[in-house]
């Protein structure tokens, strides 16, 4: 009984360690932890071309792995962050940047939401200003009107 439990524990330990090894071991990282950290930050802003809305940091696609290594190589070669991004954009276009740059092609993307919000606010403002104006000017009641109001209210109280 004890032996079986110990055996099961050993198998479980092996499986857990094997998973960790799989996750860590396949991809060589840069020996310098500072450079590796910089490379990984760059991985996070680059979009994976195969799985589209993942960054290459998150993706398991083979091309994402190749691109991670390209980024590591450029970082190790002494490129600045901007130079690395330029290197990748030159090959795959602005599309690979998860945060697209502001230019003629992306103007609508960047300005669209604030524009729609501004239009909505303006429309709401105009609506309220107009509706207030449409209330007729208030004049004090004439004595006849006051008498009528009193009569009506009196009727109600009695009834």
């Amino acid at each position: 009984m004890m032996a079986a439990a110990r055996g099961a524990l050993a198998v479980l330990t092996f499986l857990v360690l094997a998973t960790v090894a799989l996750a860590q071991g396949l991809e060589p990282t840069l020996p310098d932890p500072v450079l590796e950290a910089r490379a990984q930050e760059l991985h996070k802003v680059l979009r994976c071309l195969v799985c589209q809305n993942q960054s290459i940091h998150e993706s398991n696609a083979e091309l994402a792995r190749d691109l991670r290594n390209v980024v590591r190589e450029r970082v190790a070669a002494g490129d600045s962050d901007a130079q690395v991004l330029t290197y990748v954009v030159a090959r795959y276009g602005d599309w690979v940047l998860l945060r697209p740059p502001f230019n003629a092609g992306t103007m609508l993307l960047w300005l669209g939401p604030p524009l729609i919000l501004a239009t909505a606010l303006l429309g709401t403002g105009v609506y309220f200003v107009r509706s207030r104006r449409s209330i007729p000017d208030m004049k004090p009641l004439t004595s006849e009107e006051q008498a009528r109001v009193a009569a009506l209210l009196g009727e109600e109280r009695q009834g």
Partner: protein
Amino acid sequence: MRPALAVPLVVFVVVAIALAVGLGLKPREIPSALIGKPVPTFALEPVQDFGPGLSSEDLKGQVAIVNVFASWCVPCRVEHGLWEEVAKQGIPIYGINYKDTPANASAWLKQLGNPYARTGADRQGRVGIDWGVYGVPETFVVDEHGMIQLKFIGPVDRAALETQILPKVRALQAKAGARPAG
């Protein structure tokens, strides 16, 4: 009707048209950053038994098709027959063999025939990255100055060949021919 009442209708129509156009777009087809740019500099060994190798210098001096293929790529098998036809028409076509093993690539060309005037084996996929390749097959049309003029993503079928690729090749050939030599 007051003009202000037409505003929601106009907004609706504009949004509906924009969304309808958006539905027709293919998000998998990422426009190439390399159109109108020179081919990246590279020099590759040939696929085993299918020499000579391929380099960027080979892509200058004539309008050519560059096809990125791999033996592990199923759609490549579908389009392969069309490249045989294109080669028979005398249009130079070059093959970049992407992330393949020499034995598999060689067996593939032996089995299906070799339409490529030259082949280059890009075993690490680094030349592919320089070309902006993100899926195989991909096909490029390169003009006589070695400038990339067209990229087609995915398997080429007859319709794509006849409405996109061959017209581009012919137009570029006509342009190259019309220019005085020198």
